[in-house]
């Protein structure tokens, strides 16, 4: 190749090299020396000193509270932690793509409980039993203290795939002044009482105040509330054979109740309202009651956000045959492709430990250990703290169809809920039948049955 030709292709070569460099996956451990600690006498907490782990989490209060204390972990273990924080939806996409491509970029990730079965089934997550057994740092061991429902949500087919990092359960938020005025001063405890109270408030609200608000939009997060309502009527979304139960009399009755509440006694536009808008309706005084997860409590009593901070009170979620549900838990799990699993485990154990959570008492409300939830400090300082532990005790993560196809189920059901809420209770039978058939077909195609 002569000089002239070389000059001719040089710009192209430079471009290719720079593009390839830009596209290359980050390999933070590539330049690090492998851990050399082999002596038995080195205490477990220091055994993985010098390793670097990468963490993927999403932007939210418990994440910030935990990462603010990262220096404590790094100092105690000598393990260096690099973290990446993304918006929730972006984190899920990145997590999914990293797992499926088996790059092992992240050693620890924050996993929503409904993804545990999917990720575990596909071999993306490291089972944790052996770590709990052999590598537990005594002062961080909180296995006996985790709220059982939160711990249960981290399991798939009996195996543990994460430690509960954050847990929230449903409670009822209500306006005490309106309840005093129209519902004999007592918050509704049953589904019938909730309906009667919502009706009374709406009929006296002059079109400005409505009895009840909840999720009615077509987005995936809507799924939780109506599925929890169906649970309250005594059936679960899927039966033991994975057949959808949406056409059962109980599910139809549950949805008629839910849709009537939102369509007849909820603010206008319920079919376009997700959890954020429903919360806003309470904060603005447009709605009197709302059952949702307990992490909304601080907003509800914050004078900068709520128009009635002194009037908001808390109660157990409404009860039919069972308590309604709106359960959420996320855990910290170890990537099965991680090259630093032991160091990652120490981080997971530290970040979810009772001692670590206890330091954050003034900053968050979604703790996952019973000792904090039942402490006087928690009950006094956390809005709704008095009922949260009781609500956590009746929480049942199994109300939720935690199967790999959850996303598709949620897509179908949330759209149906949104249509029902828009059209009113008369549309329930037809919509539930349609959604049931669609979900059954979907699960059949996924191989759950012939």
């Amino acid at each position: 190749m002569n000089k002239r030709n070389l000059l001719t292709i040089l710009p192209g070569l430079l471009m290719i090299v720079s593009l390839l460099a830009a596209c290359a996956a980050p390999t933070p451990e590539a330049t690090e020396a492998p851990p050399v600690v082999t002596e038995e006498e080195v205490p477990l907490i220091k055994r993985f000193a010098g390793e670097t782990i990468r963490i993927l989490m999403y932007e939210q209060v418990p994440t910030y509270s935990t990462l603010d204390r990262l220096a404590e972990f790094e100092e105690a273990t000598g393990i260096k932690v690099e973290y990446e924080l993304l918006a929730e939806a972006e984190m899920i996409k990145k997590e999914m793509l990293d797992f499926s491509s088996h790059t092992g970029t992240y050693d620890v990730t924050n996993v929503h409980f409904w993804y545990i079965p999917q990720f575990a089934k596909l071999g993306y997550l490291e089972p944790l039993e052996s770590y709990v057994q052999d590598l537990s740092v005594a002062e961080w061991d909180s296995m006996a203290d985790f709220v059982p429902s939160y711990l249960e949500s981290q399991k798939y087919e009996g195996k543990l795939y994460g430690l509960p990092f954050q847990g929230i359960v449903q409670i009822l938020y209500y306006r005490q002044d309106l309840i005093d005025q129209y519902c004999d001063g007592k918050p509704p405890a049953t589904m019938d009482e909730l309906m009667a109270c919502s009706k009374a408030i709406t009929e006296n609200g002059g079109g400005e105040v409505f009895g009840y608000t909840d999720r009615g939009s077509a987005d995936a997060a809507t799924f939780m509330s109506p599925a929890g309502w169906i649970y309250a009527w005594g059936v679960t979304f899927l039966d033991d054979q994975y057949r959808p139960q949406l056409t059962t009399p109980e599910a139809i009755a549950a949805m008629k109740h839910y849709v009537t509440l939102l369509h007849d006694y909820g603010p206008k536009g319920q079919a376009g309202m997700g959890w954020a808008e429903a919360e806003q309706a309470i904060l603005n005084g447009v709605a009197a009651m709302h059952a949702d997860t307990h992490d909304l409590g601080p907003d509800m009593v914050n004078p900068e956000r709520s128009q009635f901070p002194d009037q908001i009170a808390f109660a157990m979620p409404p009860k039919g045959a069972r308590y309604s549900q709106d359960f959420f838990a996320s855990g910290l799990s170890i990537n099965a492709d991680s090259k630093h699993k032991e160091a990652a485990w120490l981080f997971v154990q530290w970040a979810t430990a009772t001692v670590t959570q206890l330091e954050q008492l003034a900053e968050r409300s979604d703790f996952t250990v019973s000792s904090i939830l039942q402490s006087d400090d928690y009950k006094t300082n956390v809005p709704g703290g008095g009922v949260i532990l009781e609500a956590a005790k009746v929480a049942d993560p199994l109300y939720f169809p935690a199967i790999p196809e959850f996303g598709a189920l949620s897509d179908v059901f949330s759209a149906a809920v949104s249509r029902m809420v828009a059209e009113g209770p008369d549309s329930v039978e037809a919509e539930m039948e349609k959604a049931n058939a669609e979900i059954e077909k979907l699960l059949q195609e996924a191989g759950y049955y012939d």
Partner: protein
Amino acid sequence: MEKSADVRIDHSLAARATRPQPLKRLAGAFPGLVDWEAGFLLPAVMTMLLLVIFPTLFALYISLTRWNLTEAETRTFIGLANYLNLLRELRFWEALGRTAAFMTVSTLATLALGMVLALLLNRPLPVKNLFRTLLIVPMIITPVVVGLTWRFMYNPELGMINYLISELGFEKIAFLGKTATSLPAVILTDIWQYTPFALLILLAGLESLPNEPFEAAQLDGASEWQTFWGITLPMMKGPLLVAVLFRVMFSFNTFDTIYVMTGGGPGRSSETLIMYAYRLGFEQWHMGESAAIALIMLVLVTLVSRAIVRALMPEVEGNNGR
């Protein structure tokens, strides 16, 4: 210009024997370039290959596979099954219908409003530049912010639109909470945001028109309306074509505003093709079907654009086909 082109061609022929093969091909694709000039094109061509051609081909490959991230098996080649499944789905056709409605109404409305505003701004106005600046503000706001703002404005209890409606004595309307009004509400937002885009292109076109035909029309006693239909509009075919093509492509692919304002609901009443592709890909993790929708959209938008070019400027279409 002609002369210099001839000179380059001669030089190219002389150097053909020593030209490296890839550059030879590249130069062959661009008649009139010599090999070293083709070398300068190489970075751009490679960038296009890596960032446009490769992803498109990869999407095509994915669309021919069963690739569900919820399944342990890796990609399995299934031919056209994803396409055939989609074509059998009522949801696909409904989403296609909504996409077509969105594209048609939004494009026509933005062009009509853009033309009216451009004609107004093309007249001598005392604060013309101020108007022009203010009118392009919607276009420079990021679509997510536009979506959130309009979502709040449509709010039945707190929004400005419903406040005005109730002040006029009408009942408040949950625009985004009703299946009948959600898509029109989103289209209206899109029209508000992109009318300035049409305005900018059409105003530039109007300002570049020669004065002579208008002076002649004035001398002949043509009315303003006759002048517009007989002279302005035919002479504006070029800028109109550009505006239509961009608007068709933008509106066909509108995602952010719909996602933020309605998420495709209530039900699926505002779900367009791109929303459907997003749900399939990033909520259900069915990457193959999602890629198939993306490819169908690519083909559709190409066909629509080509049809528009053929209708508005057949001479351009003829040149392209030669």
